[in-house]
């Protein structure tokens, strides 16, 4: 559909500005004045009349075409309006989100940096041959170190931020033990790993019980899909195992 007509624009484009001095120089003593509203009203009336006459004369096909054009123009306007709205919402949303996130981000980042620092520190020690490889680690010993560290941090936790603090603390405690050599004499690259698992587990199991989470997640359907069965694979795997015994 063609661009909608703006009566105001048409008037503005076709009118000329003439100063009062110029008018009087031309000998005009009086001018007839029509206010803008009246002009618009008159034009509307004229347009309506023409449209009515045309519609009366229009064939069914023409009428259908006019209706279709009107409909698509209406939809275009609605869409345009919607897009403007969406754009505005998005702008406002991202501005507010940024701010709210900055604080939490910083906290978590500090923790991650600490962890990364520890990892690289230990990694370096391994590289420099100051510690034995993974096979020399006593997992029991490490496990107990972690549990101890996590337990030490646990009582301070009262909410999600305290959980984070507890996790941080457990890592600090562990790092002290690791850099101090710990029981058994040496640190190793894998000593970073059990803490991740254990401390994370402590973090999550606590945070899920203490945190009030507002969510609709349990009511939502997850995409399901087709898959061929695996019984023949299982049977094969088992027979293979029996054969090798």
């Amino acid at each position, binding site marked *: 559909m063609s661009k909608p007509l703006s009566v105001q624009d048409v008037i503005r484009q076709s009118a000329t500005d003439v100063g009062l001095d110029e008018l009087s120089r031309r000998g005009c003593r009086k001018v007839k004045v029509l206010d803008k509203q009246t002009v618009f009203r008159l034009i509307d009336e004229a347009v309506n009349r023409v449209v009515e006459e045309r519609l009366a004369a229009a064939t069914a096909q023409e009428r259908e075409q006019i209706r279709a054009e009107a409909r698509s123009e209406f939809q275009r306007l609605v869409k345009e309006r919607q897009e403007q709205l969406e754009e505005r919402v998005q702008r406002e949303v991202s501005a507010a989100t940024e701010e709210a996130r900055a604080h939490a981000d910083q906290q978590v980042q500090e923790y991650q940096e600490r962890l990364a620092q520890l990892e690289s520190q230990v990694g370096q020690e391994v590289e420099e041959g100051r510690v034995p490889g993974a096979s020399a680690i006593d997992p029991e010993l490490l496990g107990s170190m972690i549990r101890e560290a996590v337990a030490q941090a646990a009582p301070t936790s009262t909410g999600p931020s305290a959980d984070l603090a507890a996790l941080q603390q457990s890592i600090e405690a562990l790092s002290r033990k690791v850099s101090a050599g710990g029981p058994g004499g040496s640190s190793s690259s894998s000593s970073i790993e059990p803490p991740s698992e254990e401390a994370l587990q402590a973090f999550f199991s606590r945070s899920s019980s203490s945190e009030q989470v507002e969510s609709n997640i*349990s009511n939502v359907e997850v995409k*399901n*899909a087709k898959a061929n*069965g695996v019984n023949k694979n299982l049977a094969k795997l088992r027979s293979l*195992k029996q054969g090798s015994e």
Partner: protein
Amino acid sequence: MNEAMNASNDDLDNGFVPDNGFVPGEGAVADGSVNVNENVNENGSVETDCGAQSATATGVATKTELGRGLDVGTANLVSSAQDAEGNVHIKIQRNAFLDIDADDYTKNMLTRLNVQYVVINGRMVVVGDPAFELANIFNRETRRPMRDGMISPDESDALPIEKMLLETLLGPPTKEGEVCYYSVPAEPIDADLNVIYHQGVFGGLLKSLGYNGKPLVEGHAVVFSELAEDDFTGIGISGGGGMFNICVSYKSIPALSFSTTRGGDWIDRNVANVLGISASRATAIKEKGVDITRPKNREEEAVEIYYRNLISYTLTNIKSRFESSSSMPNFPDPISIVCAGGTSLIGGFIEVFQDEFKKINFPIPVKEIRHAEDPLYSVSKGCLVASLSEV
């Protein structure tokens, strides 16, 4: 957390059978036909514990067998379970999220749109598939908890999001401590990435959900799901979003596993770069249905070029690892190569793979290069096989 470590690092090359490597368990194999499950049915759920999130095609409530499979991928998280009739049920979520301001307007809007959300520290977080769709509406990029096959160190919200996604995919275990094998990348040969940290994180997450999580290297999982007819001997390849994972297996035992950090995302980044478009636009072009043996325009040609490059890179690496490994078993018969993963879904993938294969002098005879049965679900199903075989 030992299995995958042993199966994935270089130690393997010295000792053929890993100390704590995967050992198939014993137990009865449930008879039953292979079935297909597609429709979501809120009332007839398979895993009744999971409430509305699971369903059967028939709508009849059935119990699942003990043991789950979980594919932890950069692009997708895929869970699998088997019911008493031998039907395999798959659930899949995009590994992505989006955070938006938690005002009432947005909350109402999301509720009306039936979008899953969680409020964390005053922010609304939309996770999984809806995050992807919403990001498109708002013209934003989703945030991704993982990058290059591992939990992302740059994404501070990654862990709680992953926990939530796993909850929607697995639900609570049927029995406390139910075994769930989960996929982990093998040691990457072209990046200095910490697989062990990543592995520990997901082990911990599964534990907090009540599962006994056990890692399985991704390529090995492909072997379990796709190479049964070859006595689990051959090469399993999983071409994912962040990585390619390769496992050479001899009678179900991994002889060589490694990964490269080039996958679908790498193609997207490069295509975007040469065409001067955004990466997500490149993903859209790629997933739209390109056939890389018949590119139709400049964009598709770019996709073809990088696919060829990626495939030849993968083959060259397999070859050189074969040649440098001192403990490669002697394969008495020609082997099969199976390709799985979302990146293998592009039209013409196998043809181009075969084409590139001919160009290199591969060290052992290969009888067949084929596509996986369910490329997107292969890894998860392989993990399921591993779990079920332990019951």
